[in-house]
Every structure is written in structure tokens, then in C-alpha cells.
């Protein structure tokens, strides 16, 4: 009988308990995969959206959120004058309810600005002027709002017309109602108000020059904050909160798994006192006993991790297909996250096995007689 056989037999001794423990760990790991995968997917989608627009820097008001406080559009002129700035585009982005959708992104862009250029028309046409009472919808937004070209759409107090469906190349772009900045400012009765400026720097600008430019913008206009596209979400207070919430919830689920494994391993040690003492009596070293218990708990963690990763990945995909969420989830379930999740599960297993392993190593061979 090999050492591994002893370990596996230990786990199979109580198959129901082992399965329940596996279920506990896998649910925790599934939560990690699903929550972290969704949050990373959203973050990545937003960044892809900004890159798709050809944006290198985003300037917004201080306060850090996805829809920051509005500020005066004249700030753009101060930024556009700086050397190294190739183009700018004023934006007013709102997250609000539209018709029966309770959360929709309204993305109003300066007419003629470069942020329009990445939009690929799927059907219909683009607005013909900045004043036309018209919007184009990202494909996902059109799906959610059940709109086609020619349909009316109620934006705040104005009834506008959907003139086109577009593909923006990113989740956020595809989930937006896109319109001219002047039109939204008029509807909101907020002339000259914007809440972001997309900035494109001159080609060939390296990361160091980009950081210098960011500092120049900060000095020139202290009331705003400039961040590179890569840092945009990392700087968002709201997203930091979501990230913390995601990990917090996941770790809580993992903690339940830790307790489950610890309980199982302790019970195993108690039930196998006789066997462990006999093994000690026939010459097994204490370190080998510790190794055996830790291998068992690590194996529990590993299999729990693999099952959890599978459940999490399938679950989040199934969730994304439900009518309520279709198009809103683009989870990032890359290999690094899946591998990290399995590693967490193994670590949970080993950690949970430490105390039971220590207990088992303290048994004396003579206890085999009492236990027997």
C-alpha cells in the first residue's frame, strides 16, 4: 500500500462526509470565481471601452466615481493648450433609468469629437447633427430597451428617435445610449456642463511622458483629476468599494470552507486514533503522520477547488444568459483567476489541516490499546 493510497483511503472512509466537505469548499471557491470574475470582467470591459474610443487619459472631477460631478466645459480649453495633447472630447455620462430599464448609461459626446469614431454602425445611421433629436444605441442597450431603428425613446423629459444601432467594441459602449452632448445638455437644462474629457495624446508618447502630462494637467487645473486609462477604474472609489466587497464576500464563503475542512479532518483524526497509533507503533514517524493528514486536507482542497471553479464558471455563464442579465455580464474567467482559485482551495485545505495534523502527531502508540 503506497502512502497516497493511505491518504485516499482516509478520505473514502466516510464518503458522505467527504462529499459534504467538498461541497462546502466548492461553494466558497465558486463564489470567488463568480464574484471576482464578474468584477474583473466589468473592469476590463470599461477599460476596453476607453481604449476602443482611442482615449489615453480621462479627465474628470475629483471625487472618484464612474459618473463624477459635472464641471464647466471651458476646462477643456485649458487642457487642450498643453503640449503633447493631440485631441480632446467633452463628455457627459449619466447612469440613470430609461423607460423600464432601471440602470442605463447615457453617454453624451461632443459632436464631431473623436469619441464617436470607434462606433461601427450595425444598422440605421448616425445622427446628422449635434442638434438632431436622435440617439444611437449600443447593441446591448437596444436589446435591453427592446428598441429598433425608428423607435421613439424617452430620455428624461424628451422623446428622441433611435436612428441607429452601433457596435462599440466593448461592453460599456455596447450597453450605452449614445447621443450628442449638446442635446443632452439641452434636455437636462445644463448648458456647458460636462463630467469627463477624453484625451488623446500625441502618438509616440511613452508611459513616463504620459505621467508628466498628467502632472501638468493637475497643475494647470487643480479642480480636476487626470488618470491614464489603465488607472481610471483603479482610482474609482466606487469600484474600489465593489472590489473590496467582492473579495470580502468571497473570503467569507472561503472561511466557511475552512471550517468545514477543519471539522472533517478533526473528526478523521479522532475516529482514526487507533489506526494512527498503530502506524506510530509500527515505526511511522510523527512527521509522516502530519504529512498524511495535510495531504488529505490538501487533496480535499484541490478537488473542492476544481469542482468550485467548474461550478463558478458554468454558473456565471448561465447567469449571463438569463433575460435580466443578458449582455450585462462579460466575466473575465481567464486561466490566472481559475488557477488562483484552485490554489486558494489547496491553501485552505492545508491551513485547515494544520491543527488536526498537530493533534494527530501528539498521539502516543500506547493509545492504540485504549482506542482499540
Amino acid at each position, binding site marked *: 500500500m503506497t502512502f497516497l493510497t493511505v491518504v485516499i483511503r482516509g478520505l473514502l472512509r466516510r464518503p458522505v462526509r467527504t462529499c459534504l466537505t467538498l461541497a462546502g469548499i466548492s461553494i466558497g471557491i465558486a463564489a470567488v470565481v463568480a*464574484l471576482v470574475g*464578474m*468584477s474583473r470582467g*466589468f473592469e476590463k470591459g470599461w477599460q476596453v471601452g476607453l481604449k476602443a474610443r482611442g482615449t489615453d487619459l480621462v479627465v474628470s472631477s475629483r*471625487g*472618484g*466615481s*464612474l*459618473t463624477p460631478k459635472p464641471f464647466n466645459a471651458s476646462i477643456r480649453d485649458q487642457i487642450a493648450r498643453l503640449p503633447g495633447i493631440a485631441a480632446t472630447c467633452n463628455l457627459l455620462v449619466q*447612469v*440613470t*433609468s*430609461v*423607460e*423600464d430599464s*432601471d*440602470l442605463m448609461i447615457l453617454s453624451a459626446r461632443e459632436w464631431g469629437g473623436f469619441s464617436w469614431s470607434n462606433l461601427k454602425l450595425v444598422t440605421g445611421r448616425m445622427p446628422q447633427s449635434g442638434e438632431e433629436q436622435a440617439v444611437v444605441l449600443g447593441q446591448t442597450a437596444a436589446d435591453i430597451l427592446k428598441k429598433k431603428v425608428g423607435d*421613439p425613446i*424617452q430620455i*428624461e*423629459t424628451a422623446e428622441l428617435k433611435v436612428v441607429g444601432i452601433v457596435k462599440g467594441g466593448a461592453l460599456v459602449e455596447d450597453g450605452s445610449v449614445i447621443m450628442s452632448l449638446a442635446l443632452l445638455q439641452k434636455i*437636462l*437644462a445644463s448648458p456647458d456642463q460636462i463630467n469627463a474629457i477624453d484625451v488623446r495624446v500625441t502618438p509616440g508618447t511613452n508611459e513616463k511622458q504620459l505621467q508628466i502630462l498628467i502632472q501638468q494637467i493637475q497643475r494647470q487645473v487643480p479642480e480636476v483629476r487626470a488618470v491614464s486609462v489603465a488607472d481610471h477604474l483603479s482610482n*474609482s*472609489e*466606487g*469600484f*474600489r*468599494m*465593489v472590489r473590496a*466587497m*467582492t473579495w470580502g464576500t468571497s473570503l467569507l464563503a472561503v472561511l466557511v470552507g475552512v471550517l468545514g475542512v477543519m471539522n472533517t479532518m478533526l473528526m478523521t483524526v479522532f475516529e482514526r486514533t487507533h489506526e494512527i497509533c498503530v502506524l506510530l507503533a509500527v515505526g511511522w514517524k510523527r512527521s509522516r503522520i502530519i504529512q498524511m493528514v495535510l495531504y488529505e486536507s490538501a487533496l480535499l482542497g484541490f478537488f473542492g477547488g476544481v469542482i468550485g471553479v467548474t461550478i463558478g464558471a458554468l454558473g456565471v455563464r448561465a*447567469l449571463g444568459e438569463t433575460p*435580466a*442579465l443578458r449582455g*450585462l*455580464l462579460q466575466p473575465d474567467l481567464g486561466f490566472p483567476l481559475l488557477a488562483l482559485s484552485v490554489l486558494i482551495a489547496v491553501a485552505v485545505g492545508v491551513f485547515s489541516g494544520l491543527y488536526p495534523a498537530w493533534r494527530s502527531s501528539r498521539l502516543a502508540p500506547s493509545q492504540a490499546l485504549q482506542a482499540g
Partner: protein
Amino acid sequence: MTRSFLFAATIAGSLIGSVVAQEPSPPPAMSAEALAAKLDAVGQGSAIVRTQMEIRTKEGGKHTFQLQIKQRRTKAGTDLVYLVLWPNDQKGKAVILHQKAGTAPSGSVIEPPHTVRALKESEMSEGLFDSDLAYRDAVENFFAWKKQALVGSEVVDRVNCQILESKPDSSSESIYGTVRSWIDPARLVPLRIEKYSPAGELIRRIETDRVARDDRQQSIPAGLVVHGPRKNTVTQFNGASIKHDVEFSDADFTPDSVFR
């Protein structure tokens, strides 16, 4: 809610991120009258609000409305216009409500193109656009009632709230016998309101499910869930925008203003 938890949490988190980060410290203890007076003062002024109203049935059905609310609240009284912006088949429907201090509320219902029907006093307890919120709930300001008492405290949504009990006296017209509000004293926001009949029966419960900062940087209830006497429906208000200090004239609270 029909949106994903993550999406909603991200957006809501982003929107209220700064609010959470800068949680105001609790103010010194106040008397019931002082607390009610502060809440009354916070609610005063003129504003245009846009909100989504969703009436959900237990069977899973829902009716969604986009509403524009014009409101003018002063010590002397309250004037309101609730106008349906969407759905298109109900667009232009409106309800105008008035209540002068110490008098019964009055109002009219407007149906496009040009029908105006005055609301009878007995109809004031019916649902606004058939929701769980009664006409009188929209217009009645119980924080201005004279009888106010603090009757305890309770944690609501992790916030230690003071329970303010408001009772109408002879100068306040209401069908309610008692209104209890669970007030977050730091943000001056009611997180729960319960309205009882004079016999002590719970008639309506309004819960705040989202607090946001308005254009004056004051905390306001941005999401409300209303449970009325109808047991098979619940109404959710999902506030989208608010603009304060709008100049209104009396003409803005007449049927003609709606027809325009």
C-alpha cells in the same frame, strides 16, 4: 430589481462612493420637535424630480412609469404635479395635488388630451397612478404636525435610527392616527416610515432602499419601496435626478401647465 447585482452594485457604489466615504458624524441629540422641524426644513423648497416608478405584483408582473415631479413645499403648503413621461400610452397623464397648512389635501387628475377631473376627498387615499402610494401620502407633510415624540431607537440597515412619532392634532387634516419614522439623525433621512390608522392598524410602510446626495449635497432618499394596504403589489421609486431651486409660479401647478 432586474439588474445584475454586480452591475447595480458597481454603479450604485460608484454613485454613492463618496457618500459612503464621507459619512457625516452624528449630530448632538435633539428633541422630537427640533428633529421634526429640521426634517420639515430639509423637505422645503422647489424642485423638479425625475423618477422611475415600478408597480410589481406578487405574480411577477410589473408596470413601469417614468415620472416628472414638480414640487413646491413651503410652510404655507405644498403643491405638486406628477406627470407621466413614459409609457407612451399613458404619456401626458398627470396628477396635481395641493395642501395648504391645516387644511385637507385637494387635487385633480388630468387625462390627455384635455380631461380634468377633480379628486374627491374620499379618493385621496387611492393610489397615485394606481400605485401603493396614496395621493395624500405624496402631499401630506407629517413632519410639520405639532405633536411629535421620540419613542425609541432601532437599527435599520446598520444605521442607528431615532423613531419619531408624529400625530395629527386638530389643526392637521389626516386620515392617519400615527406616523412613525425611523430617522438617520446624521443624514436627516427617514429610512422607514410606517403610517397607522387611528385604530392603530398599519396601513402603509415606506422603506428607503437607497440614499444619495442631491444637487445641494444633502442626503435624500433616492430609492423607496412602498407597501400599501393592497397585499399583492409593491411599488418601487427609483430616483434618477433632482434639480432644486427651480422658479415656479402658481400657474405651474394648474392643468393648463400640463396641457402646455
